[in-house]
C-alpha cells in the first residue's frame, strides 16, 4: 500500500515531492484533519489534486455525535473548538465519503481514534487494505473527548500501548499525532517511533477556554476546547524542532500556518511536510498559496529540492 510513485516535475522548477514512509506526495503541504471535512466540502473551491495530501476528519469505529453546542469561539489570533470528534464511523465514512475521494489523485490519510487502545487497533485493522486510503493518522491528542484522545497522548505508557497495538493491525503507513500538552515532546516522539510509528505529526490544538463575562458562563458547551490558529505557531515550531531532533522518522509540522513563512519555518526546524488547518477557514485557497510560496522560496535560495531544506536550521 501507499507505494505509488509521483512523476518528476515537468518543469525545471524545484522538486517539491515528499515521500512519507510510502505516502508519495507531490508537494509537502497537506490539509490538517478536522479542518477540511471529507474533501467534498471544499472541492468546489480547491483543486484537491493539487494538495500534497488530504487528512480527513477523525474516524472512529462507530458513528459519534460529538459535543453539544456552542462548539466554537474565536480568540485573539486563534480559534477554540470543541467539536468532540463527531463522525459517521468506519462504515459511514467508507460508504458515504471515500467513493468521492477515490476520484482524485490526492493521497488520502484517515485520522483515526478510539476510546481504548483496542478500539484504536480495531479501527486501524478495518482500514488495512481499504482501497483509496494511503495512510492512517493516529489521533492520540484530541483535547475534546472525555475518555481517550489526549489521555493517550500525555501518558508515556498509554502512548506506547496504543501505537504498538495499532501497528500490529495494519500495514498502512502510521502517522502518530502527538499532543502538545506534555513537558518533554521528544520523549513522546521517541515512544511513538519505538513502538512502530512510521511518521509523527504535531501539534494538535492546545487545551483552552473562553468565558462570557456577562453571563459568567463558559462560552463552549464542553467548557474547554482546543486552541488552534496563528497564536500557537511559535509554540508548535519549538515542539516540532524538539521532536524532529529526537527521532529518525519523518515529522509533519502543523500549528498556525497562514502563509509559506510558517510552513518554511517548520521545514527548516526539521519537518518533512506540513499541514494547514484553521487557515483553511479564513482562506480556502491557502494551501495552494503555501505550496507556491515554498516553491518560490526554493527558487530564490537556489535549492533543487524541498527535501534539502528539512532540518537546515542554522545553530551557531
Amino acid at each position: 500500500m501507499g507505494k505509488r510513485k509521483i512523476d518528476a516535475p515537468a518543469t525545471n522548477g524545484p522538486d517539491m515531492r515528499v515521500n512519507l514512509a510510502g505516502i508519495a506526495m507531490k508537494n509537502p503541504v497537506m490539509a490538517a484533519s478536522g479542518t477540511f471535512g471529507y474533501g467534498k466540502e471544499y472541492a468546489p473551491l480547491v483543486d484537491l489534486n493539487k494538495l500534497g495530501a488530504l487528512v480527513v476528519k477523525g474516524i472512529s469505529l462507530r458513528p459519534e455525535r460529538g459535543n453539544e453546542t456552542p462548539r466554537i469561539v474565536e480568540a485573539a489570533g486563534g480559534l477554540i473548538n470543541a467539536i468532540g470528534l463527531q463522525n459517521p464511523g468506519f462504515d459511514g465514512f467508507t460508504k458515504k465519503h471515500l467513493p468521492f475521494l477515490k476520484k482524485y489523485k490526492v493521497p488520502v490519510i484517515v485520522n483515526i481514534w478510539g476510546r481504548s487502545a483496542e478500539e484504536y487497533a480495531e479501527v486501524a485493522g478495518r482500514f488495512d487494505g481499504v482501497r483509496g486510503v494511503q495512510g492512517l493518522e493516529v489521533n492520540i491528542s484530541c483535547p475534546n473527548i472525555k475518555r481517550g484522545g489526549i489521555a493517550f497522548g500525555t501518558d508515556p505508557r498509554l502512548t506506547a500501548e496504543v501505537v504498538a497495538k495499532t501497528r500490529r493491525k495494519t500495514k498502512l503507513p502510521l502517522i502518530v499525532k502527538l499532543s502538545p500538552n506534555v513537558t518533554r515532546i521528544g520523549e513522546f516522539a521517541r515512544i511513538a517511533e519505538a513502538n512502530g510509528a512510521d511518521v509523527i505529526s504535531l501539534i494538535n490544538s492546545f487545551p483552552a477556554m473562553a468565558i462570557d463575562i456577562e453571563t459568567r458562563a463558559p462560552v463552549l458547551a464542553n467548557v474547554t476546547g482546543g486552541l488552534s490558529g496563528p497564536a500557537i505557531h511559535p509554540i508548535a515550531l519549538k515542539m516540532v524542532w524538539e521532536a524532529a531532533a529526537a527521532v529518525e522518522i519523518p515529522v509533519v509540522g502543523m500549528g498556525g500556518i497562514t502563509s509559506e513563512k510558517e510552513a518554511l519555518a517548520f521545514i527548516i526546524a526539521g519537518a518533512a511536510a506540513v499541514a494547514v488547518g484553521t487557515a483553511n477557514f479564513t482562506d480556502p485557497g491557502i494551501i495552494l498559496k503555501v505550496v507556491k510560496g515554498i516553491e518560490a522560496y526554493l527558487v530564490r535560495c537556489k535549492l533543487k529540492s524541498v527535501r534539502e531544506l528539512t532540518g537546515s536550521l542554522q545553530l551557531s
Partner: protein
Amino acid sequence: MQTETASVIEQRSLGGDYRVLEFASSKVAPRVKPGQFIHLRVDERNELVLRRPFSVFKTGKKSLAILYKIVGRGTQILARLRPGDRAGIMGPLGNGFPLPASQTFPLLAAGGYGAAALYLLAQQARKKGIIFIGGATADDILCADDFKKIGWKVKIATEDGAAGQKGLATDILTEYLSEKSKMRQMALYACGPMGMLKAVAEIAVKNGQKAWLSLDRRMGCGVGACLGCVQKVKDGKSWKWARVCRDGPVFECRQIVWENGKWEKEK
C-alpha cells in the same frame, strides 16, 4: 459557490449601530437565491481567524448588499470599510428559502436586522404578502420602506411601544392569524433571534401552517467541513445534527429540536 475579492461600493448608516454595506460582486451576486448567505473575510491581519456569515440583503446584476449591526470585533472592522476598500467574499452559501407556491399567501416575521434576510424572498415571491417586523425600539425597525416600495404590507411592533404596536412581532402575527383563521393557504417565513423563531414555530404548528426559519449561528468554515455550527434536527424518533451553514440556514420549523440553549450573539 465562489470566492472573490470585492470592492466596497457604499457603506451607509441606518441609524444606531445598523449599517448597509454594498460590494461590487460579479461572481457571487448573480448566483444568490433568497435566504442564502455570504461568508465575509473581515480581517487581513489574522487577528480574527474566522470569516463572518451575513445574509444577502439585496442583489444587483454586479453587486450585493448586506445589512449588519455592530456587535463585536468583526463588525467593528466592517464598519471601518470605505468605498474602494476590498474584502474577500465566499458564496452564495446555504440552501435558502423555498419560494411560496403561486396560490400561497406569504407572511414574513422579522426580528431587527432579520428583515434583511427576507427581502429577496419578498421581491421574488409571486404574491405580495405581509411582513411583521419587531424590535426593542424604533431604531431596531429596519427595511420597512424597502418592503413598502415593492408593494408589501408592513406591520410593526416594538417592545417599548415607540413605533407601531407595543409588543413583539409574534404578538401581531398571532393577532393577524386569529382574525384571518379561515384564510387561504399561507406560508410563514422568519428570521430573527432564536426565541422569536421558536415562537413562530409554535404559531405555525398551532395554525397547521409550515414555517421556514433562518437560523443564525457562529460558523467556522461556512461550507460544512468543520461541524462548528450544528443544530439538532428530528430524525425519525431520534435526532441528528444538521449543519446550519450547509444543510440550512433555513429549516422547516418541524425539523428543529428546540432546547433551552444559549444562543450566540457575537459577530
